[in-house]
């Protein structure tokens, strides 16, 4: 069975400081992992994806995530937060063997303080 745990429901950072959003996953198979962002009243936008290639994945808007199999983690980072990064972030795991059903975490709300 697949599942995702987002360890923080809310994260608050100052503009220009690093961002760390934590995600642990559970999967009985080599999973594919994703981070999506959801701005208020907007659809879900893909930030980045891990698909068993390089363990350090670079995404849009300066975000990165590192796949650590030994820790079953896929934390999202950004060196310097921008006001426009304030949004809800979702970590997602899927099993490509079964049609890529997505399992979402409960989300982390990121606040950026000016």
């Amino acid at each position, binding site marked *: 069975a697949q599942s995702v745990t987002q360890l923080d429901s809310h994260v608050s950072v100052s503009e220009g400081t690093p961002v760390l959003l934590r995600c642990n996953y559970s999967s009985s198979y080599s999973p*594919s992992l994703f981070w999506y962002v959801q701005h208020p009243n907007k659809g879900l936008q893909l930030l980045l*994806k891990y698909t068993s290639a390089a363990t350090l994945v670079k995404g849009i808007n300066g975000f990165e995530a590192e796949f650590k199999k030994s820790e079953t983690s896929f934390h999202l980072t950004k060196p310097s937060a921008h006001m426009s990064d304030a949004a809800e972030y979702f970590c997602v795991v899927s099993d490509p063997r079964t049609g*890529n*059903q997505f399992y*979402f975490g409960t989300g982390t709300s990121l606040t950026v303080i000016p």
Partner: protein
Amino acid sequence: DAGVTQSPTHLIKTRGQQVTLRCSPKSGHDTVSWYQQALGQGPQFIFQYYEEEERQRGNFPDRFSGHQFPNYSSELNVNALLLGDSALYLCASSPGGQGVYYEQYFGPGTRLTVT
């Protein structure tokens, strides 16, 4: 490319009524998935359609049903609406096939309110 489109944007229904939501996938995509996102929660998988058949289903009652048309567009039907069905309903599309890592592209959603 218009991306994934959904209609209507908002909908208000009364308990016991039936509702149909519509989705057009991104150009070139033949697989459509539906998700329910309750307020303050992550999206929950309802079902997925591929080649006009339901390929996978999440833990949702039979009141939730769907359809996929030959042009790959899809409908989500919910019968006998309950207050708890109030949520944002998201449609996502992706290329078909299994065993391949595909991201899903999401539409803006339909906000359903049941009173």
